């Protein structure tokens, strides 16, 4: 292959970033894949490739369970977040005067910038036995005993939804305002009600944007360790929690790697699912 001087120079610019990504991302990823086929004999690693980890994964109930728990939580969070964020983005885009929209949007996503670790913790203040919600409920005499809200799946989902509503409001808003107002005007002129305009015109036009946001939510949610760990308690574990458990207690890197590969697999499947949705929508 004969490279021109121009191309050599181009390579020179790309090379540092490429080498960094290869050395610190691609190679570790391949090693992790190999590690998932190794096994642990006592404390020593055995590099004889086998699918023992994956077989163990399918046989141990708590490992299989964690995959379903993760999927259930992630799907609930994705759907609830979209349903809550869409009206909010709609109101900011179409009901608030343009002059105030940027401020309203900025305010709606400001808590996004609370520290990631502290964000889940701050929900504990609201949901714990002595927390604000129980304080209000008992103050109103609605309940005599504190309601258990923290250390439940409800708490995990609430913490996640709080974060992703902000993210999705941002992406859906961006989608809504770039639509030409002529679509809405035309639908209205032709006699469509507000709901019909939304259902038949705006929703289909913003569906690709919603799906992109929903996919982002899915990916970030299923890979998250902190929120379920702080808010979910120990009754049920998600996949990231099980991975961290393998690393901490037993230093079982092979099993952790196998779980990580499974997690990747789920994300890839989700991508294919979402991609098909988007394409179907375009036809």
């Amino acid at each position: 292959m004969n490279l021109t001087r121009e191309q050599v120079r181009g390579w020179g610019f790309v090379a540092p970033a490429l080498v960094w990504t290869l050395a610190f991302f691609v190679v570790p990823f391949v090693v992790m894949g190999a590690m998932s086929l190794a096994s642990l004999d006592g404390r020593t690693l055995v590099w004889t490739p086998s699918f023992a980890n994956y077989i163990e994964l399918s046989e141990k109930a708590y490992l299989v369970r964690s995959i379903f728990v993760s999927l259930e939580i992630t799907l609930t969070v994705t759907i609830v977040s979209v349903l809550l964020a869409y009206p909010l983005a709609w109101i900011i885009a179409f009901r608030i005067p343009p002059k105030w929209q940027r401020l309203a949007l900025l305010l709606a996503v400001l808590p996004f910038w609370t520290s990631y670790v502290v964000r889940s913790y701050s929900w504990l203040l609201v949901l714990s036995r002595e927390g604000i919600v129980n304080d209000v409920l008992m103050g109103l005499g609605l309940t005599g005993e504190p309601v258990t809200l923290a250390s439940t799946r409800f708490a995990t989902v609430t913490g996640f939804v709080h974060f992703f509503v902000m993210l999705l409001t941002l992406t859906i808003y961006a989608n809504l305002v770039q639509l030409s107002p002529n679509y809405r005007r035309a639908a209205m002129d032709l006699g469509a009600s507000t709901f019909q305009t939304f259902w038949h015109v705006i929703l289909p036009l913003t569906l690709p944007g919603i799906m992109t946001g929903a996919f982002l939510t899915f990916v970030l949610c299923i890979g998250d360790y902190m929120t379920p760990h702080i808010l979910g308690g120990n009754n049920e574990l998600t996949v990231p929690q099980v991975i961290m458990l393998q690393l901490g207690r037993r230093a079982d890197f092979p099993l952790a790697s196998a779980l990580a590969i499974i997690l990747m697999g789920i994300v890839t499947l989700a991508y294919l699912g979402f991609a098909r949705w988007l394409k179907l929508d375009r036809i």
Partner: protein
Amino acid sequence: MRSLSWAYLVAAFGFIYLPVAALVLFSFQSGGLPVPPFEGPSLRWYADVIGDSDLMGALLNSLVVALFSGAVSVALGFCAAYGLARHHLPGSTLMRAVLIAPMTVSYLIVGLGLLIVLQRAGAGLSLWTVGIGHVVINLPLCFAIIYATMGAQQQNAERAARDLGANEAQVVLLVTVPMLAPAILAAFFLSVTFSWDEFIIAFLLSRFDVTLPVEIWSLLRSGLSPKLNAIGSLVFLISVAGVVALELLVFRKRQ
């Protein structure tokens, strides 16, 4: 319809601000627990935070790692974007895909992979390894942002500079970088924010010197405390100041 909209808006903002309000309010709690009843304002927990040398050390570590990894990410991302946008290279689609790839993988998996390789290689864990991990996750972001803003407009100016006798380094440093300054600054600020707030990679790849999120995490194990509220409120304040600075410095200028 109008009142329904307002009701929804109020309810949504209530939901969004409820935990933040609880965090900030009870950081001023004079009692020992950050839950109702509020026993009156006090700054004792802020004093406690400022006086905690472990926390302050971690805060400094976080700043150093964030600024360093942000700078490296932007430098590498800019060079790659320049190389790919301005030169016709064989395999450029594949290279773009490789550079973007880390964005599609959970931080946990990026951290786990790096941890395995570093252990195999016998490298010790330190703030350096945390920084390496943070560059891995921020580089795709910087590359994507800067690559997307490299248009024909700058290319004409670059050609003009070259015709007037500028060498490649002069073209890049005196023409391209200044023209792309808003995008470069935005990429840098975003990287710094992500690194500053990142937990799982920092947790897996650090040992004795830790970053702020990891230090907060270890405080969290002892349960609810107004001290955590105070440090959380401080971090929130710093981040918001950063966002406002970005808004004023970068986005206002562009308009």
